[in-house]
């Protein structure tokens, strides 16, 4: 995830129950782990370092103004040091975001009444017939009782995600859908929509998957899954034989998320294949 996206995610989360979050943070003694100023400072440090690294890389790569192996070695050492510092900062940022996730889970678990809303009359786009198919005994109870609000969002998410990873995509869809309906304001909602889309993709429900990836992109503008959703849309369009739309999706990844190295490289590879 890009630093911008991380920061945006953080800001979104801060807006959600900010008072409760701060109170709980203090109560739990986590203030030293994740505070707004910490994250902002980290981001500033990473930006500065990234700029320095880019500059050193340019100098080392171009060779201009560098004469002799000593200077080159010095540049390489500086580059390695800066990269190490960036990695450490990224590690701290990841840990803080993880702590924030945990904090949000605790807040939502402790305030289910305020977080829960009555189930919506219908899903945002009814799942295709058969998606609520056979359920295993272990999960059927949870998945078939949408009126129950005793489960916190993270409990529903945990079960749904486990079902997804076990390949029980039909069940996962109903569980993720339930989370989104019952807790539309949960910080897990956008991820739930994303994994619901993934489940549909695995079941080859391509159009439904597209609609849900679009929901992640447009409805949850600060979603941590936004960049991946653009990429996945490209893949779905490829499956549907819509090469033009696939190219457009991959290009959007490159335009909007230049710091998403992994996705950018994957998108470039896809684009080159589509050009062949």
């Amino acid at each position, binding site marked *: 995830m890009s630093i911008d996206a991380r920061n945006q995610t953080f800001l979104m989360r801060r807006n959600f129950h900010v008072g409760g979050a701060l109170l709980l943070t203090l109560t739990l003694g986590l203030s030293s782990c994740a505070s707004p100023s910490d994250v902002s400072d980290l981001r500033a440090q990473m930006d500065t370092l990234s700029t320095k690294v880019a500059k050193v890389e340019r100098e080392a790569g171009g060779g201009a103004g560098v004469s002799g192996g000593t200077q080159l070695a010095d540049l390489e050492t500086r580059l390695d040091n800066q990269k190490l510092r960036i*990695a450490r900062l*990224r590690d701290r940022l990841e840990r803080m975001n993880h702590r924030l996730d945990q904090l949000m889970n605790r807040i939502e678990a402790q305030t289910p009444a305020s977080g829960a809303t009555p189930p919506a009359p219908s899903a945002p786009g009814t799942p295709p017939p058969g998606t609520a198919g056979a359920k295993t005994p272990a999960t059927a109870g949870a998945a078939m009782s949408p009126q129950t609000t005793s489960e916190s969002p993270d409990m529903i998410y*945990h079960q749904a995600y*486990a079902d997804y*990873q076990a*390949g029980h995509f039909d069940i996962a869809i109903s569980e993720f859908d339930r989370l989104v309906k019952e807790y539309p304001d949960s910080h897990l909602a956008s991820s739930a929509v994303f994994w619901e889309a993934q489940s549909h993709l695995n079941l080859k429900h391509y159009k439904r998957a597209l609609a849900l990836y679009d929901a992640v992109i447009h409805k949850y503008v600060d979603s941590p899954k936004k960049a991946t959703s653009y990429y996945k849309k490209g893949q779905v369009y490829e499956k549907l034989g819509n090469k033009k739309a696939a190219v457009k999706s991959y290009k959007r990844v490159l335009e909007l998320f230049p710091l998403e190295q992994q996705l950018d490289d*994957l998108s470039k590879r896809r684009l080159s294949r589509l050009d062949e």
Partner: protein
Amino acid sequence: MRQIFVWKAMVGLCLVGALFLIAAPAMAIDLSVITNETRLSFKVVLVGSMEHKGSSFLTKKGEALVRKDLLETGYFEILTPPPAIAAVFAREPLDSVSAHSVAPLGVEGVVGMQFSLQGDGVQLHGVVRDPLNGSILLDKIYRTPGKYSLVVHEFVDDILYQFAGIRGVATSRIAFIGRTRHGYDLFTMDFDGENTRRMTFDNVLAFNPAWSHDRRHILYVTYLHGEPQIIDYDLSAGSRHMLFAYPGLNITPTYSPDGKRLAVALSRGRPSQHTQIYLYTFATKRLERLTYSRSNSLSPTFSPSGNALAFVSDRDGHPQIFLMDADGSNVHRLTFDGSYNVAPAWSPRGDWIAYVCMNDMHRPKICLISPDGTSRIMITHGSGRDDSPSWSPDGRFLLYSRQIRGHSKLAKIWIDGHGREFLGQYSRSVLTPSWSAP
């Protein structure tokens, strides 16, 4: 070797860095969370020879192994009938009336067996009777040209399936790398540590064996030609061929659950020696790069559905476990506790990922984490250095190497951390175990 050096350097860095870190939070879940499905217990009585014409020596050994296998499944409690009832069994071992006599004891199955020698092989006639109504639950003849243990393992797997409805592990095998006098070689053994067989005689550094889903192939990493390369050992043909020998590092191969693909870490001659994860499809012989970070990515392991992979990367400065989709997208970090989390192994049930973590004394231990990262627990303790977890095919046991005072053994443990036992009689150090499918 550079790779090993890099990781060792990382460990050192982590240990220093850990001094400045906030102590890892207490483990997140109670042990009972992972023991729910592992405490079923069926009471059975073992009856020796159904008829008195079997080989007494073979019968004695066979019965002992059936008892051991049944107990090792964790699903059975073996009762000893009182003398009066035992006398009845002695006269009519598997008569329905005899079986019915143990019903008041709460016995749910009477297991009878008869071993006999058939030429160079062994035959086992196995019967299981329901004490309540005297009906026969299982009646099958098992034959093998090999050792009696093979038919016993099959029989016990059938019994387990009859009672618990799950496929047992008694016919599964374990591959590992064993220290030899002059180096290392590939070995296999039965699931219970018996029948150890040396498969190679190369005497060079080797590690990371990985079984194919049909147990016909073992991939492993060897330094046969000076650099780590991956060999495909075709067990059915008894032949080996080099599968990956790119310049640089060729390490940590793993099969997809359907056996059609494999994931592997290759550096492919990059000056940085950074390994990236690749996906190889057997049908098309196509190699597809999955990771693109400017750091190491290695040790991939597939989810049971084959749609996702867990792997190790030091992209954030320290080795941590990450997840990604099997197309390389959707990468996200899974582990946050500690600075050294490596060697992930995804449970066949999908509910846990086992990996090597560090305890407070900076010793490597085995941890479990749920794939969404919400639950984490350390399941091994003590002074040993635990490494290379591998799941049993039913997802109830973990196998790993445990090093104490420089000597490494294979240990088996229930996923809730109880019942640790050492496997095998191999006297030298053993490394990187891999548990096959049944």
